[in-house]
């Protein structure tokens, strides 16, 4: 900031002292990123090689023992499986729904902003609030729950959605909550992209007889490529961070099976539970980061993210 206060008096431009100006503008952000993101990652890697229970200044170097322990831990392994399955389901389904809604809303002649608002509104809801509605009103296991009431009209027995620990019932509860919460946000990203497609493209295509599905297939979808790539990446990272709904919907019974918990919930209990096991928690975090990085790179390779930026 001392450098900044000098700035207004000067008549310098970006080209005259580029290093100084770069750090005046970017410095505060980079400093924060360093302290709160990059150093913690480094610290995490360091901690993962030590036995660190209830202490952050461990002295016993254990090499790869923490990694061996976490990878040998069937609960952690099954939590990794949970999140891969969860991501494999939620990413394409959200993508398709958000795109479909955007196209539908975009072609609506009237009430466009009404529909946009309705689908976007759940974004204002937190996972905690959604968990309340889903667990205690919509999918509550008793006959007074909405879904069981509707099922009852057709003569079906009430389903104990969340109190049975076997899939698939709790799975349905978890995924619908997330879909409801996030579809609208991504729909808005697609809507914005749709508005930018030049109308002339559709008119030219219509002359060649390409309308409806063909127009979507050969014009809309290719034009949305950049947005699609960004949306897929955001969805993937979001799915791998799943915590709130699992914690709020499933931690109540205490004895929930490990496969119902994604890695973050598991790491939360490992590192910040009764025994603050930072060593094993950090090893788990590093494993998780590597897996996410691998998926992100794979997806980047498949969809071409990064090549555009270069």
């Amino acid at each position, binding site marked *: 900031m001392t450098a900044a206060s000098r700035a207004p008096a000067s008549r310098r431009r970006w080209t005259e002292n580029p290093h100084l*100006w770069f750090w005046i503008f970017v410095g505060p952000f980079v400093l924060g990123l360093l302290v709160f993101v990059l150093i913690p990652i480094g610290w995490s890697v360091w901690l993962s090689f030590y036995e660190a229970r209830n202490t952050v200044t461990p002295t016993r170097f254990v090499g790869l023992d923490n990694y061996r322990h976490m990878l040998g831990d069937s609960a952690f392994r099954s939590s990794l499986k949970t999140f891969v399955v969860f991501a494999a389901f939620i990413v394409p389904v959200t993508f398709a729904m958000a795109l479909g809604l955007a196209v539908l809303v975009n072609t609506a002649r009237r009430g466009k*902003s009404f529909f946009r608002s*309705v689908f976007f509104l759940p974004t204002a809801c937190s996972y905690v609030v959604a968990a309340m509605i889903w667990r*205690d009103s919509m999918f509550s296991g008793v006959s007074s729950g909405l879904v069981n009431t509707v099922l009852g009209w057709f003569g079906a027995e009430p389903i104990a959605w969340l109190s049975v620990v076997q899939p698939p019932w709790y799975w349905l509860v978890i995924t619908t909550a997330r879909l409801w919460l996030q579809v609208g946000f991504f729909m*808005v990203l697609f809507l914005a992209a749709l508005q930018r497609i030049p109308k002339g493209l559709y008119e030219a295509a219509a002359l060649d007889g390409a309308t409806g599905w063909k127009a979507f297939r050969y014009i809309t979808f290719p034009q949305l490529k950049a947005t699609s790539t960004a949306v897929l990446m955001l969805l993937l990272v979001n799915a791998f961070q799943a915590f709130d709904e699992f914690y709020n919907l499933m931690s109540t019974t205490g004895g929930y099976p490990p496969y119902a918990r994604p890695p973050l919930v598991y790491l939360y209990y490992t590192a910040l539970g009764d025994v603050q096991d930072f060593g094993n928690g950090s090893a788990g975090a590093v494993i998780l980061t590597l897996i996410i990085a691998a998926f992100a790179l794979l997806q980047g390779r498949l969809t071409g993210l990064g090549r555009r930026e270069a």
Partner: protein
Amino acid sequence: MATTVTGPRRRRRGVRPGSVVRYAVLAALALIFLVPFYLLVRNALSTEQEITRIDGWTWFPSSPQWGNLSEVFDSTSVPLARSMVNSLLIAVTQTVGVLIVSGMAGYGLARSTVRYANAVFYIVLATLLIPAAVTFVPTFVMVSSLGWVSTLRGLIVPGLFQALATFLFRQYFLGFPKELEEAAQIDGAGPWKTFWRIVVPNSWGFAAAVATITFIGSWNAFLWPLVIGQDQSSWTVQIALSTYVTAQSVNLHGMFMAAIVSMVPLLLMFLFLQRWIVAGVEQTGINE
């Protein structure tokens, strides 16, 4: 905006069957999306017996229980008012902070001529792809060694450095017309003055979009406040609500009323800023 048609088909007179189907689908989906909100309001205004009764479903409470509203504020086990104030302080500070920090960084990254600007940008991009939540263990360790556990500082400061906001601002400023800035520079303004006098006043629309996204994210944040807010005095509203969910026995009507109360600031914000989000997103590089 509501009446423009950018779809592939030309306007024709009369009602086409395709458009009837489309509206039917849209209306049905809209209804499904609104059901959870309906349940929220219905339960918040019901008595406990009406929510849990098993002999037949009621669509509306027989008489709205407005007293439920004052009840949730009187509760001593869940400090709703206090945690609302905490959440407001955190969300407002983080939103303002992110706008300044990321706005400046995005501008610097977009305009700088130094060779390593791209390298810095790639680091930002990389941290965007690595979920922040994965770093919560070491960040917790660090923040606790600073003595920031259960403090507003500990809740606010780590959230001021958002790679996504910086990325969005950079993409936006790449498309900002340079001519405006050049005119200011000819008048003798340096980059600092140009940024605050010319660029910022012309970017409110986009800033509003980033502000909305940041505010929502901050208000709804759960994992970090759960880790850091260990004393009741530092609870955010989401943590306070969560104690309803994870409690062994709760009064459901109070829980749903508290949930509605927790959403009021965001709903107000939506009323005023919703169209800015679409307009703002249209200007970002996410669509480029």
